[in-house]
């Protein structure tokens, strides 16, 4: 039961942390909770479909369909997060000045909501499909004796959600002056970490060369299987043994989004240009 809880916790944790950060970043968007729930719901539905179709997906593209699918899902999430950050940079000054009195363009927040929906759905879909497959395996294999295992699975889900909520609650305590800078930086690293993961899937599919493997090895000090390692992996894309190509992706995406944010900030401030990015 304990082993089951740990595995499910690990799968749920990543999605929960992503949701925690995004929920905080969109704190003042109207009807945020409804959109968040819709994203989770769509993600769960998608996870079930992906879990059912695992065999099919894997057979696509001469056996590397799963890798290409994962890379595509991650790639879309990276683009959405980049978009979110650029949008926030052009409106961030107004948001930080007074979140309650921003112009309709921001209050409306239609774009922020669709980004929230898509990224949350993709995160739940990716991590959820593996959890569904794992729990299905237990249920199918153990027959009647699987009840404690399923209880373990539920405990794992609860644990992951609790950590995500803690992150969310902690982020909300950041003073408004720094709040959007803080969530912006978190989203930036989230996107870079996802880009690095996408690169890993493309290497695994033999679409990209790995360059140096591994570029460094810190598995003795901070293994990815440890809780700290797993949390850092989800938040900033930490890997104990990354390949060179992953770091190339990481640095490129980090640099591109950071430069875009700076540029938008400079050109958008002080009064946010409504529709600059719409």
């Amino acid at each position, binding site marked *: 039961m304990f082993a089951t809880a740990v595995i499910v916790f690990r799968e749920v944790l990543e999605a929960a942390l992503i949701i925690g950060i995004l929920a905080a970043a969109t704190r003042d968007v109207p009807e945020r909770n409804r959109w968040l729930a819709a994203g989770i719901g769509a993600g769960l539905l998608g996870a079930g479909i992906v879990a059912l179709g*695992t*065999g099919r997906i894997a057979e696509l593209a001469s*056996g590397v369909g799963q890798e290409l699918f994962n890379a595509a899902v991650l790639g879309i999430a990276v683009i959405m997060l980049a978009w979110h950050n650029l949008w926030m940079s052009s409106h961030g000054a107004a948001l930080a000045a007074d979140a309650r009195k921003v112009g309709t363009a921001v209050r409306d927040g239609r774009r922020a909501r669709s980004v929230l929906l898509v990224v949350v759905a993709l995160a739940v879909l990716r991590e959820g*499909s593996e959890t569904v497959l794992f729990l*299905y395996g237990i249920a199918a294999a153990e027959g009647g004796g699987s009840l404690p295992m399923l209880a373990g699975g539920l405990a794992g889900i609860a644990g992951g959600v609790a950590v995500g909520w803690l992150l969310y609650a902690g982020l909300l305590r950041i003073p408004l002056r720094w709040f959007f800078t803080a969530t912006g930086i978190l989203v930036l690293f989230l996107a870079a970490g996802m880009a690095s993961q996408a690169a890993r899937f493309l290497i695994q*599919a033999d*679409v990209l060369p790995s360059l140096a493997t591994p570029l460094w090895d810190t598995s003795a000090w901070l293994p990815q299987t440890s809780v700290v390692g797993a949390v850092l992996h989800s938040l900033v894309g930490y890997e104990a*043994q990354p390949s060179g190509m992953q770091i190339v992706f990481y640095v490129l995406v980090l640099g591109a989004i950071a430069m875009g944010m700076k540029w938008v900030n400079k050109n958008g401030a002080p009064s946010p240009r409504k529709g600059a990015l719409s």
Partner: protein
Amino acid sequence: MLRSLLLAALLLLGSTSVIAADDEFRLVIENHRFTPEELTVPAGKKIKLVVENRDATPEEFESHSLNREKVIAGKSTATIFIGPLKAGKYPFVGEYNEATAKGVIVAR
């Protein structure tokens, strides 16, 4: 400058797309165990690992040292490209049945 970059890119791509048949290795999952549990592969070469899951339940091939993870549906076969590896031992597990599904790839 641009031309040499392009050339380098082409060489890199070219080197990844050609895999000789003798660099293919097989693993079988049955009763939540890998066979063979120890697989010896050549170091410094890219390898195509073909994993056949004979169980009805799905399994996730996972190895942090190989930097690989892949879900393999029940009764199906998956392809995983690994390496080129430095000489050494690379443990892997079936994450869904970690108690029994363990093995190691030895590169030499």
